């Protein structure tokens, strides 16, 4: 069975990437299971998705603990422990990072035993990095034909219109072609054998006092401490020359209360907490708010 995990941020097409790969396997005659995993958060929050594919019906379920391949659409997630990118990586696991740095650099930086490949930005499709990862995975397993991948992308994206489809096809196929030298690098993993298994370290839960054992947080304003600004892929920027100091539209409608209004009616965005949903951009009457990609800003700053 193939067990493949995709990591990225909400809005990068991670769920769609898993579905495109799942459908490509399915069209090749495999049994397939694919699923996204996310919490209650919005755009920009770390999410992952996984694909299982086998020649026989799949009984395994849930998060893939021992992946054959892990593909990362957003390199900023690699060092985030909560994103779980490196979870279960073994010597035989192939890691692919959409990054302008080389696979060798990543391999050394993370001190990984297994192969690491990088998808360079032109191969990684920029904002379509998720779809590029799907194309990369399709080539790495070595059992999915180019035309099957193309048909799968058409099936998953076709409903979104010709222009979106063309861009996604280009991203998936560019990555597929770029990884031709590594076709078949990802191999099917074996199931956990029952003979000689490592028993789980089960424990009895102690009975703690009610105050301690209740799901409470004994501190005020905890959401201030969570810097959700790190989730942002797009940054709203106010053009104060255009802003007419209406004083309430963006500040009231921001779902994260990330826009405060000064006494002189000037709106100020709290970038530590703004998640980049772009609601403010959509609602500002004089169109005074623009969206700037965070990646481009970071690169310009370097």
């Amino acid at each position, binding site marked *: 069975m193939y067990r493949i995990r995709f990591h990225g941020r909400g809005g990068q097409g991670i769920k769609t990437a898993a579905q495109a790969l799942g459908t490509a396997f399915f069209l090749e005659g495999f049994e*397939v299971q694919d699923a*996204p995993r996310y919490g209650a958060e919005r755009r920009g929050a770390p999410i992952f998705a996984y694909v299982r594919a086998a020649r026989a019906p799949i009984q*395994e379920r*849930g998060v893939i603990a021992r992946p054959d391949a892990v593909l990362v659409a957003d390199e900023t997630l690699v060092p985030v422990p909560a994103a779980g990118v490196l979870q279960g990586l073994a010597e035989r696991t192939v890691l692919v990072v959409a990054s302008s740095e080389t696979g060798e650099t990543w391999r050394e930086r993370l001190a990984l035993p297994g192969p690491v490949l990088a998808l360079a930005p032109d191969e990684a499709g920029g904002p379509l990095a998720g779809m590029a990862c799907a194309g990369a995975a399709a080539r790495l397993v070595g059992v999915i034909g180019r035309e099957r991948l193309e048909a799968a992308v058409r099936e998953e994206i076709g409903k979104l219109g010709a222009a979106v489809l063309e861009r996604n096809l280009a991203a998936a196929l560019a990555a597929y072609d770029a990884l031709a030298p590594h076709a078949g690098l990802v191999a099917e993993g074996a199931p*956990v054998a*029952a*003979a000689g*298994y490592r028993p789980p370290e089960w424990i009895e839960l102690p009975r703690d006092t009610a105050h301690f054992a209740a799901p409470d947080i004994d501190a005020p304003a905890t959401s*201030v401490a969570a810097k959700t600004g790190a989730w942002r892929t797009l940054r709203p920027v106010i053009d104060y020359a255009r802003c007419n100091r209406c004083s309430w539209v963006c500040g009231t409608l921001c779902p994260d209360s990330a826009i405060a209004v000064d006494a002189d009616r000037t709106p100020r965005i709290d970038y530590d907490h703004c998640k980049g949903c772009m609601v403010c951009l959509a609602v500002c009457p004089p169109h005074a708010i623009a969206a700037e990609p965070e990646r481009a800003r970071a690169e310009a700053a370097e």
Partner: protein
Amino acid sequence: MSRRLLTGNGAAAWGARLAEVDYVPAFPITPQTEIVETLARWCDAGEMAARLTMLESEHSMVTAAGAAAAAGARVFTATSSQGLQYAMEMIFTVAGWRVPFVMVNVSRALASPITLEPDHTDVLSARDAGFLQIHCATCQEVMDGVLIAYRVAEDARVRLPAIVNEDGFYLSFTREPVELPDPGAVRRFLPAFDPGSAAFRASHPASRAVAVLGGAPYSYFRYEAHLAARAALAVYDEAATAFAAAFGRSWPAVERYRSDDAEVVFFMIGAFATKAKDAVDRLREAGERVGLVRPRLLRPWPDAALREALAGKRAVAVIDQNLSMGMGGVLAAELASALHGHAGMPMIVPFVGALGGRDIAAEEFFEIARAARAAAAAGVAPGPRLLYTADELREVRKLQAIAHAERPGAGGTR
């Protein structure tokens, strides 16, 4: 017939579409929303002739479902977790009306603490209501289960509403290959709902579900509903047999997987049962005689079929993905009620696990089988064992340390 990748939610929506339902009262809740969204899209596009109405709560939604079913409409609805709880007054009430409809519940663990991920405490809280309950392990079963549920619920011998249950995330958002049957074949398996003389008509005012005082009429009406639910055992078997003949897929009330010659069997409901099957295959490879017995039908409780499936086994390891506080797992207690007092029944070895979406590792299934075998050899049934590791507690202790820490300066920073 076509085979395609569908999520459990997509399969549930296809079940409603193929059943050619007339009315869908709806209210959104994660992880169910995709079902009613899909149906709404089909209704808008004219691909489904149903009327979909968004209600203001699950309480009203279930009331509307019962009322429309009383008028003779074929009704579909769906909910999950807190939504099911919010509707609970009407869940009991509409079952007493003796009106058939199908509600998909997408299992999600209950607050507190609030979460999105699944266990079965939500749906089991409705087990005494008079709804039939079908529990699914695959996306295919979700779609097929909806069709079978209509046939059983609408049968004149039954006339009770039914819940078809699928696990949130593990089925609701997971795509698997699903075989879509031909609509004509579905129509032959499930003809239009014929309420007979029972249908309420606006032109013929009538009182339904009247109040009673004194225990005798109350006992009569409630026990009649119980007898109808018991009659559903045979009706389900007939429906499953007809379904297998029409579509080639067999969904008996009790699934047995490699259990006939097994000494130890896993016993569980829902999507994780397929993980148990995988563990059975691995244990068989290692030479162990292990199997799985899974009640697909939970209400009515197929006690006779369970005894038949379990007679002669040494131990049955019950894995409850629910918790009745102060008691333990619900399935273990229900199974004890089916086995107690009958000769040749296995020892029940209870486990509680997978609460709130917590996974069960392959090694844990192996260890469960070992523990069950050891308990049977020792002749002493242990109390319920929680599937929980030292690492997990360390993780929780870390969270607690953060949650209970004084953080000077927190708050008022803006």
